[in-house]
């Protein structure tokens, strides 16, 4: 905080806010009831975009990882699409979905879907053949192999991938809320830029995004501590 304050004193223009001004900005937003509304809006968009991506990408990735031909056919396409920034999808999302929540959800979905697909695909490929053979030797049916061998084998890697991807989804919320939604922490930043000299609110939005990102990451870390997954991690 001290370093921040000192840096602001030295910065040219004198428009950047000092820590106390950002706290005042956050207080103003809270008093107007906007802070809670905007946090809810961003969490809603990230939740739906991310959950939809997880629900579709994980089975899809597992299937590609299990069936070599599927991977050979689709992996090049996935690798072409994967480096495209979610920002590049903005015009297409507006043309397809118009303006509002659905376009924003689509951007977050796109940011999450491909990383999760690749994670799931790699997780299946990394299953030790010994485990699969042991399952078969014990006479497990295909469905039992999925439930008792594949599922527990891929979960540690999937959880790590889910944690990283949630960070990406949260990162994209600013870009997603640039496109004509009128709520959310990303919108707060864009809107504050339009409001004249309100850089305190710009930084307030950045601080809230950072803090909530931290809370989300802590939540995902709790998943890693679940008893059924702990086998995949080094003992503490």
């Amino acid at each position, binding site marked *: 905080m001290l370093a921040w304050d000192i840096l602001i004193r030295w910065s*040219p223009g004198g428009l950047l806010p000092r820590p106390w001004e950002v706290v005042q900005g956050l207080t103003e937003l809270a008093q107007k009831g906007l802070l809670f509304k905007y946090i809810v809006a961003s969490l*809603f968009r990230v939740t739906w975009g991310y959950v939809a991506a997880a629900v579709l990408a994980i089975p899809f990735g597992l299937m590609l990882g299990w069936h070599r031909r599927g991977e050979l056919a689709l992996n090049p396409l996935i690798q072409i699409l994967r480096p495209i920034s979610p920002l590049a999808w903005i015009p297409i999302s507006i043309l397809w979905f118009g303006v509002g929540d659905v376009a924003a959800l689509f951007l977050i979905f796109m940011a999450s879907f491909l990383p999760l697909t690749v994670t799931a695909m790699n997780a299946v490929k990394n299953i030790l053949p010994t485990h699969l053979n042991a399952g078969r030797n014990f006479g497990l049916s295909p469905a039992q192999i999925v439930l008792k061998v594949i599922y527990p084998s891929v979960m540690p890697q999937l959880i790590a991938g889910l944690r990283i991807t949630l960070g990406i989804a949260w990162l994209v919320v600013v870009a997603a809320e640039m496109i004509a939604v009128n709520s959310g922490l990303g919108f707060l930043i864009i809107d504050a830029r*339009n409001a004249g000299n309100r850089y305190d609110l710009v930084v307030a939005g950045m601080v809230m995004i950072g803090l909530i990102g931290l809370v989300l990451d802590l939540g995902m870390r709790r998943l890693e501590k679940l008893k059924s997954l702990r086998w995949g991690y080094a003992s503490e």
Partner: protein
Amino acid sequence: MTDAKKVALGVLAWTSVVSALHLHFNVDWAPILNDRLPEHRRKINVAYIPVTCHLACPVTDYITRFTKTGNLFLPKMFQGFPEIKEALISNKMQAAFMVAPMAMALWSQGVPVKIVYLGHRYGSGVVVHKDGGVRTFADLKGKTIAIPSRFSDERLIVFRVMKKFNMTAADLKMVEMAPPDVAGALAARAIDAFSMGEPFPSQAEMGGFGRVLFHAREHWPDYMSCVLVVRQDLIDRRPETVQALVDGIARSGLWLDDGRPHREHAADFVGRYYYNQDPKLLRWALTNPLDRVVYTALTPYKEDFDLVRDLMIETGVLDRRIEFQDYVDTRFAEGARRQTPWKYVPNSGVAE
């Protein structure tokens, strides 16, 4: 209960709670319900961005809420022209305020839209740093100037003045920058000047670091920047709706130009309820002086648009001559000529 079930239930509960809160606090139900009405009863969506060039849009929406018939359309605030353009192309917006060169370029590229009215006249200027040593336009030689878009009149005015001072494009470094960022960039001396519409010149003046080098009207009499654009299918199917929209904008323009109290009141309600800007900033832009931006004489004229077209061709953003009668539909502006200002006394809660 297994861990997997606990996680699934947790995700379900979280999604339900956050969705319920979002639906309660943030969702604007008016456009959603409007989309479900039969087409002839549906209100059109009109896009704008929070600049004074588009002020007649929120003013019309606000005042018509106090009339017996209610608001004429659903305004939708955007943060930039590219998003407006895409929403218009995909028919998510049926009408929009946008810079004239962009509207003309869209039409020339085959997008089915027509210009039906102007949004304002004047209201743009070139701003320099107060202590930057720039006294005349010639002093900008070799310096960096920010413009909102290559498809903007703010860029064209710079070219027009460059010619007057015998300067060429090589004498000036022109950069495209989002309008909200220019005042901060000027304060930090990242740029030497900017050519923008209000309220950004006012923001630099109010902040004490910017000085208006010239207003656009000083070098371009009858300067216009933003226009009202409507989709062709709406014009064909519901001309009466387009006429009502243009009439409403015309009446708001007359009301805004009716004197300082109206402008001050508009600065207050637009700043608070539409633009989320400090009303003091809008008040500065609208009253300092009163004709800094003008909202009357908004009928499109061929001479004005021919000038813009020729400058666009000259500066390489339009590849062919397009004719005024092809991309402008003047019948709605003609129909609005006899309109009178809204009868609305500030804070009365009644309008007609």
